[in-house]
């Protein structure tokens, strides 16, 4: 995170002499690759970093989701031609004007934590990484409004708010993702039950359109609702004014278990209609507790269907106690509730049992919830998967239903089958009355289930704001790709939906067929053997949580120095891709601060993995000890690095010598 001069957190030793002036450090220059990169560079746009080396672009050819390679690389041109990282509105506008002129598509990207492909190119183009515009511009305690740049991360904002006795109204559980990224995709997450969709908390959005014009859109504007879930179709969100809340004195989670999900739901409905007014209500299925027990290595938690909720304020707590008395149900011990409440920030931990995780995410009207879940359960049984269900109760009569399952993503065939299963599941749930949460690329087949009026409004807004189709085009309304639009055809709602339905109806046959394919493939391909390094790389959720905390990234600005970047480098090596000397050298630029390890969603032993990776790279290209030392010295002298260290790299992580532990974010 970039921290401004006025400072964040207390100075630990104000009296100490200033550090010596930093000498210049820049990681070895890599030659520009490609015409667009050269043209952009020639324009000399201020506040803009241009990345064009294959090794760096490769990181932007994907998002959080693990997609079978043949799908991604054969059907689409997922490799961007160039990646730009602007640090000012002017730089954003300049790039957009250039793109409009040259007819190149621009794909906005926050931290790439959304799994649906919204930030992944389908036909090359320019990926605009906005995570460098991450400043917190202003916090107005009296009006309770915070203004941030689009790339600001929720966790950083929350930390700043805390100093003013404030907190976020709502945020995704991926607090490491960007404010604009969530506005452009989901908007449903923590505290949605009490504070509603993120749109209820946004006061103003600053948008740069493809004409390079800056628009300030407020709640009363007709355009305002269309910006939510716009998936980068309308322009670049460069800053946002958010309403925030006062931090309550008391905040307490509760966990209540039930023998079946129906009783859990009736409890949740009763609770939702009571005087208690919890801030958040979430249903977790028994499978989740089973996996957490497995992770803990003890039967600490009851493997029941459960409701996890949070109440704020003493009145609410008292009301909850009264409510519990009236229902006669016993709640679980407080520490278990607190443990599960903290786990909400780590939904990806269970991936390690695959390693890998796939699933589907839909919005369900509450009356249909039980039916959707039992339907999904039935299909899962037929497909031979053991799903985890999670429902976040919203305040508009809907629930956000997540259904996911662990899978081995290292095996292409198995992964493809698992992905197909996830599509079968989504199609079933939509048929039962749910609607898709996000479209991106992979949910394109379900775009027909979107609210028709909403889609029409969005289409209209796009026509006026982005007439030349610069913004993330080739997605959402129609899917582009390679092979004369084969992807568009295959993922088209008209073809794919009926096909999925057929497969579902003949599910025993489908499963037999899938098993057959799997069997043949297994015999043909040699069994997959993984090195320890590759196993860790496969366990990585590619969520990007480790990027905002990485001091090396702050200094170098190249994602290849981050944990995600390093693990992607390892994956590329395992695929046989050539790693250049410059690329290898960058991999060594690291402060060994362990911030990535502490925040890691998958709880990976990253530092060990880095050591192995470095050893391999050293064998190929040697190790530039001098550059490493220059880098360390330069970082040490950088005031920005200093401020980051004083603040704490991982917000919420314990700051005492007790040997680390889980961070709060």
């Amino acid at each position, binding site marked *: 995170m970039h921290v401004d001069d006025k400072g964040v957190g207390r100075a630990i030793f104000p009296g*100490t002499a200033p550090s010596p002036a930093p000498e210049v450090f820049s990681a070895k220059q890599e030659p520009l690759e490609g015409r667009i990169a050269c043209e952009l560079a020639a324009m000399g746009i201020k506040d803009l970093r241009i990345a064009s080396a294959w090794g760096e672009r490769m990181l932007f050819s994907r998002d959080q989701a693990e997609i079978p390679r043949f799908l991604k690389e054969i059907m689409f041109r997922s490799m961007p031609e160039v990646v730009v990282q602007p640090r000012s509105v002017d730089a954003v506008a300049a790039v957009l004007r250039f793109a409009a002129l040259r007819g190149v598509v621009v794909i906005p990207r926050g931290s790439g934590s959304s799994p649906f492909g919204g930030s992944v190119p389908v036909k090359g183009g320019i990926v605009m990484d906005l995570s460098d515009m991450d400043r917190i511009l202003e916090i107005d305690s009296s009006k309770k409004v915070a203004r941030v740049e689009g790339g600001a991360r929720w966790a950083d904002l929350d930390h700043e708010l805390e100093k003013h006795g404030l907190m976020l109204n709502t945020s995704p559980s991926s607090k490491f993702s960007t404010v604009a990224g969530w506005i452009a995709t989901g908007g449903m997450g923590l505290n949605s039950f009490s504070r509603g969709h993120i749109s209820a908390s946004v006061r103003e959005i600053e948008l740069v359109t493809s004409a390079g014009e800056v628009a300030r859109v407020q709640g009363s504007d007709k355009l305002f609702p269309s910006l939510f879930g716009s998936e980068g179709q309308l322009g670049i969100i460069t800053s946002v004014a958010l309403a925030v809340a006062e931090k309550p004195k008391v905040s307490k989670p509760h966990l209540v278990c039930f023998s079946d999900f129906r009783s859990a739901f009736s409890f949740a409905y009763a609770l939702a209609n009571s005087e208690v007014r919890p801030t958040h209500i979430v249903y977790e299925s028994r499978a989740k507790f089973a996996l957490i027990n497995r992770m803990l290595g003890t039967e600490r938690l009851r493997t029941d269907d459960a409701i996890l909720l949070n109440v704020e304020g003493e009145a609410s707590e008292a009301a909850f106690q009264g409510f519990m008395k009236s229902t006669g149900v016993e709640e679980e011990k407080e520490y278990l509730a607190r443990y599960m409440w903290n786990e909400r920030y780590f939904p990806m931990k269970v991936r390690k049992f695959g390693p890998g995780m796939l699933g589907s995410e839909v919005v369900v009207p509450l009356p249909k919830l039980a039916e959707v879940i039992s339907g999904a359960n039935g299909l899962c049984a037929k497909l031979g998967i053991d799903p985890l269900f999670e429902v976040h109760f919203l305040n508009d009569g809907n629930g956000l239903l997540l259904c996911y399952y662990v899978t081995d993503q290292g095996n292409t065939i198995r992964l493809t089958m698992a992905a197909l299963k996830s599509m079968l599941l989504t199609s079933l749930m939509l048929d039962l009355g749910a609607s898709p949460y996000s479209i991106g690329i992979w949910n394109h087949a379900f775009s027909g289930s979107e609210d028709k009026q909403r889609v029409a409004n969005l289409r209209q807004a796009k026509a006026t704001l982005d007439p030349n189709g610069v913004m993330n085009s080739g997605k959402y309304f129609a899917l582009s790709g390679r092979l004369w639009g084969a992807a568009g055809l295959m993922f088209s709602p008209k073809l794919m939906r009926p096909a999925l339905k057929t497969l579902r109806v003949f599910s025993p046959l489908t499963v037999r067929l899938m098993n057959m394919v799997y069997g043949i493939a297994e015999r043909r391909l040699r069994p997959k053997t993984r090195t320890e390094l590759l196993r860790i790389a496969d366990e990585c959720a590619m969520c990007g949580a480790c990027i905002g905390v990485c001091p090396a990234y702050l200094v170098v600005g190249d994602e290849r120095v981050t944990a995600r970047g390093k693990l992607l480098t390892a994956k590329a090596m395992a695929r046989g891709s050539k790693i250049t000397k410059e690329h290898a050298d960058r991999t060594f630029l690291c*402060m060994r601060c362990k911030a990535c390890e502490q925040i890691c969603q998958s709880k990976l032993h990253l530092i060990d993995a880095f050591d192995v990776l470095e050893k391999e790279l050293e064998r190929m290209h040697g190790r530039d000890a001098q550059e490493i030392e220059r880098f360390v010295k330069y970082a040490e002298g950088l005031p920005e690095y200093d401020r980051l*260290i004083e603040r704490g790299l991982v917000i919420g992580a314990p*700051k005492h*010598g*007790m040997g680390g532990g889980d961070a709060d974010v």
Partner: protein
Amino acid sequence: MFERFHVPIKVIANRAGPVPKFVIVRADNCVNCGKCEKACIYGVHVRSELDSRKMADPINNLCKNCFRCIHDCPQWSLSMAPGAEYKALGKGVWSPLRISTIWGEAETGKIPVFGAGYRGIFAGSGYDGMWTDMSEIVRPTRDGIHGREYISTSADVGRKPPVLEFDGSGKMRTEMPPLVELPVPMVMDVTRLRAMTEATIQGYAQAAKRLDMLLFAATGSLPASASAELTSHFVPVYPSGTDVARIELPQGARMAELSFAPSWKDDAKAFRARFPETVLSFRFDAGKGVEQRVLDLVRAKIDVAHILYDEEGMELDRGELRHSKESLRAVHKAMVSKSVRDQITVIAGGGIAAAEHVPKSIICGADLVALEKALLIALECRDCITCELASCPVNLSSASAEWVEGRISNLVGAWRDQLLEVLGAMGLREVRRLRGELGRAIFYEEVERDAFSDIEGGVGDG
């Protein structure tokens, strides 16, 4: 032109790893930010030479306990604890602090520095119950800070006749007894030391020669290679029962020492007859009646009384526990009252564990002190309870004579500098004038008695 005495000093590195006084623990949550490196002016925290991204393990022995790194670490990941091995060092007077101080002095030859101030006891037993006068310390223009080079630390070993007689022609009739003049009021005595090797003795001997000191050692314990060269600084010590008639003094020896025995008067006579030009010393254990024994030696015109105390500086006669501080004062007082104080030189040995013990012994009445165990500690000896060269943790048997010589020179240099500080602070120009100057010290027990004895239930009341 006279040549000013000066101890050449050069860092003589430790051979074994030092035993750190403080152990700094860097917990797992360290982020390798390097702030501790900037904070520590003593160089405890540095980045790893193998991988500059990581901090190396703290170099604990450089830590002076200033707490700055602990304060500055943004992660609160540093903590400090007294070193367990350090705390277990030595016993009694030979406290961990004294032992490690000697190590430092022998390594650097410098006056020790104690980081966050002196936090030792205010008063204690033995020499810790004695405070020296430093009233002139704030008067730099006198013999103080600017006058160190004019302060003499030399001491004479030998007897001085009470009166000088001259004949009519002005020729001196008094026969002048032999005298050895030393530049420092310290001698080395290895007769009671354990763990001696040829190389270490050789090293001590070389140091004695270099510093113009005397080395007391059993006859024949000097390796042949050294004896030829070092004889004039070598004082052979003969065990009791030695037949004086058969003694063959090493060539060039200026002094010899006999062990006290019932036949001492005859021994002395026999020795005098054979070696009239050699300073004669008698060594004996301090104990009951030590005052009388010294007076007897004076009467028999013996040149030197070498009084031995144990490692703690206590008299060896276990009947009545008395520290050399009291013992020496009694001896001094007895001689002064008989007006014979200058007719013998008193060397005190045992329990000299710190530089400050030298002036303190002298104030109590010794002319010189003998360095014993300190000589071994200077070689990084850990003062183990069971001492065996074969399992010596610092592998003393492999120490070279040159290394030993350097360490001892440094130790003596550092101690002499501290003696100069004390003399300067007292405004004295000569260590000779410090001998028996009880007014230059405050004795804790006496102050306490003065202050509280007339109070009911106070000291001295029962």
